[in-house]
């Protein structure tokens, strides 16, 4: 299995799990935030929706210029849940079309992210994809699970049960 196939296989399992999180954000809570320094629930959901497609596009350039993290426009406030889900569907489509084209040689190639003039990151492209398209995505989905909990929304199961649900891979034991 190539590196791209392995990342894509994992992504295909996790995308439907992530969709359950995004679908559960109440329409009237898009601007809610747990703390004044936090992203709003809508911003965080939109970020989670946009990350996979944005990251696979980002690594097409080498070096790539880091976004201006101080610019608040980096994390747009969506107007509706529908906008979040539409962005997520586009993100999934982008991953499906672009990820398989990154062969193992391109995955092993040294990839650079510039932050202004200096090198912010230097690592194999495949490692950056693993870290930022997936691990960083899971980190934000974990954050979002606390948001849903605080909003008294049932939290989807992920790697194991939440206080509300068993993951699909455990439900067969529950029902048996």
């Amino acid at each position, binding site marked *: 299995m190539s590196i791209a196939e392995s990342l894509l296989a994992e992504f295909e399992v996790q995308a439907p799990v992530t969709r359950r999180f995004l679908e559960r954000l109440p329409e009237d809570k898009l601007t809610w935030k747990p703390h004044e320094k936090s992203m709003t629930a809508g911003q965080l959901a939109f970020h989670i929706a946009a990350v996979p497609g944005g990251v696979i596009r980002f690594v097409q350039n080498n070096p790539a210029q880091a976004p201006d993290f101080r610019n608040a426009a980096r994390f747009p406030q969506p107007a509706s849940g529908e906008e979040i889900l539409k962005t997520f569907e586009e993100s999934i489509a982008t991953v499906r079309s672009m990820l398989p084209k990154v062969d193992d040689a391109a995955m092993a190639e040294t990839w650079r992210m510039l932050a202004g003039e200096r090198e912010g990151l230097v690592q194999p492209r495949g490692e950056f994809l693993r870290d930022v398209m997936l691990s960083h995505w899971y*980190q934000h*989905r974990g954050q979002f699970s606390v948001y849903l909990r*605080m909003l008294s929304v049932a939290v989807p199961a992920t790697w194991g049960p939440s206080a509300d649900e068993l993951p699909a891979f455990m439900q067969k034991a529950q029902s*048996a």
Partner: protein
Amino acid sequence: MAAIVAPILSEFREEIPATRRVLERVPADKLAWKPHPKSRSLGELAMHVASIPAMAERIAKTDEFTAGSAAPAVANTVEDIRAAFEKNARAAEEHLGQMSDQTAQGNWRLVFRGKEIFNKPRAAVLRTTMLNHMYHHRGQLSVYLRLLDVPVPVVYGPTADENPFA
């Protein structure tokens, strides 16, 4: 170390400092705090994060595990939590470092209520149940820190308090 587990060990090592930073910020006097009645307390969540690397040894040494059969480790102090993380991280490095390709490719089962939940190569279990699962809970912990007005450390990128690329 064998080839199959090499990227998992390498990634785990890269993730240790960020996980340590998050655990070091856990305030000693807030371990019983929780953001919602259904949530884990701060102490429970932090100890869970600190304990996840211990899965490496369990996965390396056994062929299966019954979910819910081991009581979660309990921490009374932040020192307990940090010490558990350091011990478990060292053990994970050791067990991953010794894992042969044959062991990494060998299947490992999760059992729940007498039924098999999954049965897949150890390398795949390490990827999902150790690494990805740890990132998920570390993300939750970062929100807990925010809610407690603790500056949130850098994990993958800038937080509202710190920027690794500045």
